[in-house]
């Protein structure tokens, strides 16, 4: 029997190639851990099909590259024959008729879907507490949140219920939970991974990306997902194949540390861990220079106009007419109001109303158009910064994992959890969060950002740092 708590996906693939284990054994091992409900990571398991697929792959002479390694999928990605609820009551029991392109590509490469992970309803939130179904707990401290919105996928990997998983990131929803759960989380360049089958929150920001226990695993998983999809007009032809990073040095690498994100509002323990990482950058041959992203101060305000505006249209299709539960009423309007009023959670409603307002005639110019203009400034800030540095560094989250319930009454404090990640999303840039140490026994995430399509540079640098940091991603007491 393999010990899942010590395994990376890379290790599992090696063991499979060497005949030390089978896909069926791996699937059983992980499914057994998935059924442990201490963490509340999963909303649905697909045990039967996972086992069948494992047996199928085990019987193949020519095995696909991932050889039947299991994976967990955020419940915002469409999976044929497996419920996809976005953790919302409005999609309770909804079983899609098609599979998202990114999941399909991974399955074709030999990954096996274990099940669907919990999340903030429609990916709106930073703690996974907005799930309409259950609480997900941080494997480092069960009284704390795993972050969000992809909290289930992050917790599943941190709790070794899957060697890796997929999340989605609109304003930080991969990077922030990765930071809070002490694992690697990566948001690719906008357009790198097809959004076909990703239930849209904010279309111009949403991206699919990997959670993993190592940078190499994250790179490996992403390498199967990138590239143009004819079903997504915003997906792009991928320039260079993604290579598994091997670099141990950062010679010549110029890393800019964002001064605005190293001062007030950032926990001292977080700042200290990030500063230690910057010292390591220099030890590895790189240089660290302070940089400024002045427009980033408006990141949260900009984000909370653009994302709700898009979501107000994206979520309008959930009307109870064609699928999902319906609250019948005497008139059409009543049916809409009852269905949507009863079945959307408060945060989702808050954002729909905010977005509807931002787009309303007479307010559009003052809010939506202005937000787009600021977005352009933020893009320019990053472009200017990248004239002098190769990568940009900051904390991923201003704090370590906070307590369950601590921020639910105060949306603004919850929104500020994404202060470091949101500007990057607005600029559409690739970004990774790697664990860089502990603060009060809880993981701290280091965010690295590169120019568009610099994924290979980002993986190479974060791999070198990861090796130097030597963080053990398995929470204490788990192994």
């Amino acid at each position: 029997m393999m010990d899942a708590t010590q395994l990376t996906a890379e290790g599992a693939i090696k063991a499979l190639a060497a005949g030390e284990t089978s896909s069926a054994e791996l699937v059983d091992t992980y499914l057994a851990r998935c059924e442990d409900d201490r963490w509340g990571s999963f909303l649905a398991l697909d045990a039967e099909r996972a086992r069948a697929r494992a047996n199928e792959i085990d019987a193949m002479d020519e095995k696909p590259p991932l050889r039947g390694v299991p994976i967990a999928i955020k419940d915002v990605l469409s999976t044929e024959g497996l419920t996809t609820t976005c953790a919302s009551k409005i999609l309770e029991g909804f079983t899609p008729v098609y599979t998202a392109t990114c999941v399909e590509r991974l399955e074709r490469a030999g990954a096996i879907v274990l099940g669907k992970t919990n999340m903030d309803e429609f990916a709106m939130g930073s703690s996974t507490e907005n799930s309409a179904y259950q609480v997900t707990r941080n494997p480092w401290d069960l009284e704390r949140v795993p972050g969000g919105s992809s909290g289930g996928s992050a917790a599943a990997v941190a709790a070794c219920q899957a060697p890796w998983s997929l999340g989605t990131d609109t304003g930080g929803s991969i990077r922030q939970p990765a930071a809070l759960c002490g694992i690697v989380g990566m948001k690719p360049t906008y357009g790198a991974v097809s959004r076909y089958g990703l239930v849209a929150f904010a279309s111009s920001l949403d991206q699919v990306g990997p959670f993993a226990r190592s940078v190499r695993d994250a790179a490996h998983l992403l390498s199967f997902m990138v590239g143009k999809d004819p079903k997504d007009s915003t997906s792009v032809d991928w320039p260079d194949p993604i290579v598994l990073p091997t670099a141990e040095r950062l010679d010549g690498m110029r890393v800019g540390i964002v001064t605005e994100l190293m001062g007030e509002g950032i926990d001292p323990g977080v700042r200290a861990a990030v500063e230690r990482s910057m010292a390591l950058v220099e030890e590895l041959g790189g240089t660290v220079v302070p940089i400024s992203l002045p427009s980033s101060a408006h990141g949260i305000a900009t984000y909370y106009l653009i994302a709700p505006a898009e979501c107000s249209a994206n979520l309008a299709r959930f009307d109870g007419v064609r699928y999902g539960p319906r609250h019948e009423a005497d008139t059409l309007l009543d049916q809409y109001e009852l269905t949507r009023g009863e079945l959307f959670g408060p945060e989702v409603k808050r954002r729909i109303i905010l977005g509807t307002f931002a787009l309303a005639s007479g307010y559009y110019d003052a809010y939506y158009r202005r937000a787009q203009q600021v977005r352009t400034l933020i893009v320019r800030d990053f472009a200017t910064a990248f004239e002098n540095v190769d990568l940009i560094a900051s904390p991923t989250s201003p704090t370590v994992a906070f307590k369950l319930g601590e921020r639910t009454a105060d949306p603004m404090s919850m929104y500020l959890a994404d202060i470091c990640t949101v500007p990057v999303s607005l600029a559409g840039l690739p970004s990774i969060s790697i664990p860089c140490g502990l603060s009060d026994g809880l993981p701290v995430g280091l965010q690295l950002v590169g120019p568009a399509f610099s994924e290979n540079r980002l993986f190479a640098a974060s791999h070198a740092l990861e090796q130097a940091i030597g963080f053990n991603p398995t929470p204490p007491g788990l192994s």
Partner: protein
Amino acid sequence: MSDAKYEAVIGIEIHVQLATRTKMFCGCELSFGDPPNTHTCPVCLAHPGALPVTNAEAIRLGIMAGLALGCDIAPESTFHRKNYFYPDLPKAYQISQFDEPLCIGGSFTYLQEEGPQVVGITRVHLEEDAAKLQHLSASGRRAGAEQSAVDFNRGGTPLAEIVTEPDIRTAQQAADFLKQLRGTLREIGISDCNMEEGSMRADANVSIRPVGSTELGTKTELKNMNSFTFLRRGVEAEIARQIAIVEAGDRVVQETLHFDPVTEQLHPLRSKEESHDYRYFPEPDLVPVAPDPAWVAELRDAMPEGPVARRVRYEAMGLTFEDAEVLTESRELSDYFEATAAQADAKQAANWIRGDLRALLSERGEEPWQGHVTPTRLAQLITLVDSGALSRANAREVVLPAILESDKDPQAIVDEQGLGAIGDGDELRSIVQTAIDDNPKQAEQLRGGQDKLLGFFVGQVMKATGGRADAKAVNELIRELLGS
């Protein structure tokens, strides 16, 4: 409207269904009349996570429409979301174009008896159609209850919306404009423009103002008129209604109206449907449309001559306004006419096609270009008559039907049936002389000035020749031989 005090100001918005194989933003085939919901997919049913992809053929056809209307093709145009809730709109937004349409600023010339008229084209943009909503009586359910069903087959059908400037002044002009515009759109193949099946729909914006004024009055919008007649009658009724309002000292209210062709009444559409704030914003799921300028130039160079241009050319060939109008009703008829006119007199060709040929064929439910009367044969027939070798009567009554039946050339039929006309030669002269000799009394009367007897002698000669004589030649011979 001939009311001299007021003139109407009319602009038209036309929706045409583009003749693509598949829908605007997904791969579902277009269908008309197939069982409900048999042409659907996650995209056009707005399943969670599905994304639109623009149909390249729809872009091409939209650009063709713009080029035919003399528009500039935008180097970059964008799609927007137009948001509103309704069960026929599965995403709860329509993907349409807003402030950056595909084609901008053209014009269309249409012909009137008094001369050509120009209508400015504001824009041509692309959008998707809604699904079809059917309200069903609820048999088998609670008495009195009603239910509605949605057929998504039509949902996502590509549409081009053509918007004109308010350059039209009468209801008749509106109908003429639309008819000739349809001819052009059909000609370039972007749509079959079938108004009954709904592949072409027109809305009219109507206002009135005192003659001589250049200001625009308050306009009303007449929605969804699905025939030229309804458009004409609807606009007529609306102009009359507005004049009555103004004459009574009231003011026209801006509203949307529905014209009921049965009662000829105009009903305001519920104002609730009108108070939408559509909250347009750029569609983030689609990239801008940026057609290659070289490709657009190619399309422009390949644009065929439109029916209006052909009409102008036909009139220059000596055809009447009406001839040219009728002969350009379809490309096939036009081609048939031109092939005939290339080998015979154009005006004669037009007369034959519009008159005897169509009359004969309509009994058989055929079109000129379908039967044995090829342009060459028709031209030969015209030439035979023109040269006096065949009488018009025999050409019409004998030869033309015989070509249709037997698939033979006119000359062969003339020879077989001995229909060769007896011209002004000696043979005809002796027949005329015989007729005079046989009827001395009548000859004397005609000589005495009773001209009506000319017809009597022509009839005698025709009887004797089996109709092969040329009536004009017979006339001349009678007068010559009688010395009158």
